[in-house]
């Protein structure tokens, strides 16, 4: 009731004092400078031919960069890889994080806090370190993954995890899942602790089973945090450069090339800023579209 009153009072205040609306202007200016200006510059560059190695100034070429992109096989491979990498990682790590949080939810005893800490450790490891760790673990000759799998008889000869066009992307996804699962574990564990005891108690009184409680009580409470967590991780993985670059540099061939790696190659190896900007704009539109979809999901749920 008091929250309602406060909201009403602040709304009426805002209506009476228009000055408060202007208070947002400094923030908007800063946002325009640090976000808007680079985006607008990139959009303009995407319609120009601009190579840093060529002394001539940028030249307006209309939509040529975009039509080149449409015909560029590698762009489509990179886009497909990005979608597989992003959604594969988010789906699997969300599932494992959810499972771990539910299993460890009611764990008590001497070691429960230790186990929780161990589950969270991968989140504390810098992504570049994760990438190097897995790169060495996946090595075809002498890598621990092959050694273990051969010792237990699963493999008869070393697998070229990062040197096979079929295995490289899944291998990087596994490393990424290891690194991002703790995020979902933390999100779900926090949301679980926020479920009112009275609701769970009522379920117990009504003799609801484990699955029934999970499905009808816990999962509805977890939906919003999972949607928000997934959105954050989709954006983070869409932009993930370090792991792919350190582990494979987008190879072998283009089998693990993602959009961010392709943009990097175009901009900082070929110095073709015009084409790289065009890819960047498509990339931005895709991310905005995904974010809009997630937010719509949240709004539908709220209403």
């Amino acid at each position, binding site marked *: 009731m008091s929250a309602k009153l406060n909201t009403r009072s602040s709304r009426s205040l805002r209506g009476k004092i228009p000055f408060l609306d202007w208070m947002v202007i400094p923030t908007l200016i800063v946002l325009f400078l640090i976000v808007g200006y680079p985006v607008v510059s990139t959009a303009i560059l995407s319609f120009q031919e601009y190579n840093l190695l060529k002394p001539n100034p940028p030249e307006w070429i209309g939509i040529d960069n975009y039509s080149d992109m449409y015909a560029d096989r590698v762009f489509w491979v990179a886009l497909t890889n990005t979608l597989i990498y992003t959604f594969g990682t988010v789906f699997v790590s969300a599932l494992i994080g959810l499972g771990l949080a539910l299993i460890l939810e009611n764990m008590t005893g001497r070691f429960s806090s230790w186990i929780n800490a161990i589950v969270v450790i991968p989140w504390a490891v810098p992504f570049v370190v994760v990438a190097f760790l897995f790169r060495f673990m996946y090595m075809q000759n002498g890598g621990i993954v092959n050694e273990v799998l051969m010792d237990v008889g699963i493999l008869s000869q070393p697998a070229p995890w990062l*040197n096979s066009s079929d295995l490289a992307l899944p291998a990087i996804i596994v490393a990424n899942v290891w690194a991002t699962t703790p995020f979902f574990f933390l999100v779900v564990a926090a949301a679980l602790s926020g479920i009112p005891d009275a609701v769970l108690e009522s379920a117990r009184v009504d003799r609801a089973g484990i699955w029934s409680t999970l499905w009808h009580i816990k999962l509805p409470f977890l939906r919003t945090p999972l949607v928000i967590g997934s959105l954050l991780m989709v954006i983070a993985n869409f932009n993930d450069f370090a792991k792919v670059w350190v582990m494979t*540099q987008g190879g072998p061939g283009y089998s693990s090339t993602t959009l961010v790696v392709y943009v990097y190659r175009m901009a900082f*190896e070929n*110095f073709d800023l015009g084409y790289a900007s065009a890819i960047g704009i498509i990339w931005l539109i895709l991310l905005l579209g995904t974010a809009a979809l997630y937010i719509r999901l949240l709004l539908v749920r709220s209403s």
Partner: protein
Amino acid sequence: MKNSSRTMLFGGIAVATSLLSAPSAFAQDITLQFTNWATAEQTTQAGMQEVIDAFEAANPGIKIESQTVAFSETARQLVLRLRSGNPPDVAQVAGNDTFVLAASGGLQSLSQYADDAILGSLKTGSFEAFNLDGEMIAFPWNQAPAGFWYNKEILANAGLDPENPPATIDELNSAMATIKAANPDIITLGLDTTNRAFALSSNWPWMLAFGAKPVGEDATGAESPEMLAYLEWMRSLAQNGYIDPGRKIGEFRPLIAQGQVAFLWDQVLVQGVIQSSNGMDNDTFNATYGVAPMPAGPSGQGYSFEGGHQLVMFADSEHKEAAWKFIKYLSTDENAAKVYTIGTNRSIPPAAEFEDGEVAALLSTPVIDSYSAKIIPTIAAQPYGADFAEAATAIMAGVQEAVTSDIPIAEIAKNIQSQLDR
């Protein structure tokens, strides 16, 4: 009181005079920014610093501000610095990076500094490649061509003649099969199959050995029968387990030092890396390792590439005379050659002759003799320039697909060509 005021007045004038004169004294000191990776790498750091200290001692008015950059980051950083109007005075460069910087228009032509006398003191073939349209874009610092290294013990253990490495690719194929059968854990051939400009430089001589020339002047394209033959051969190397795909050339060096690589396609500086890794003395090293020219391919010839380092001066430098003095010192001073080029970097100085008998003695080794007499004459030009990096991405991605996937070779070649045409 009067005296003390006068003393203070004179004292003040003296201090003011000394302060006014001080800046002009300091202004004679020039600080040159020198971007290099020699001080970034542990094996060359100390030697490089020693040479810089010696230069500063010999030239009291010039200070060197060494700016460390990783080898793989050099072109990126220098191009971005150039475009933002903040290039160094002098930089260490190599391979395509030299030509990329020249294409960007930011390099100072060295033609006006490198007169006939100094060019006449260099070996033929050590500097001509750096003349573009009549202007000298870079000055050679050292020569480090690639050769075909072999481990004599591995060859002997496999029943092969350790003193006669394969001279043709057919002989190489046969030797690799023999070695693999005798010792399956050995990496039979160390080749750089990463996707970067250096990897194309390194693989270019192998393509030429097959008669393939996918880009550049007189290019036959990526779909030529010669290029298909090269890609088929690369695939056979992977399928037979002879190569370890995805490794950078530098990652093979510790392995050859540990006796885990039979053949390695690498530069002259490998000797230094091997000896610093396993502590071998020169006699043991020469008894264990040898270097020969690339085995001749179907084209009837073998080739090499120049992986040496050059020095460039930027057009925006405000201290061009001092920068040239530094370049000339690093490249041609006998002490600098002894301490850094030969002693630390284990490469070959571009100078044709040395007065110091000690330097000549250092250069008289079986490895350098083999390079000078047999390998350097096989160096082939590369299609360096602004488009080389883009071509490298397309070609090396195709090479990687050939060695790591089942995609038909003809389709891979078609994809390479479509990327080259983009």
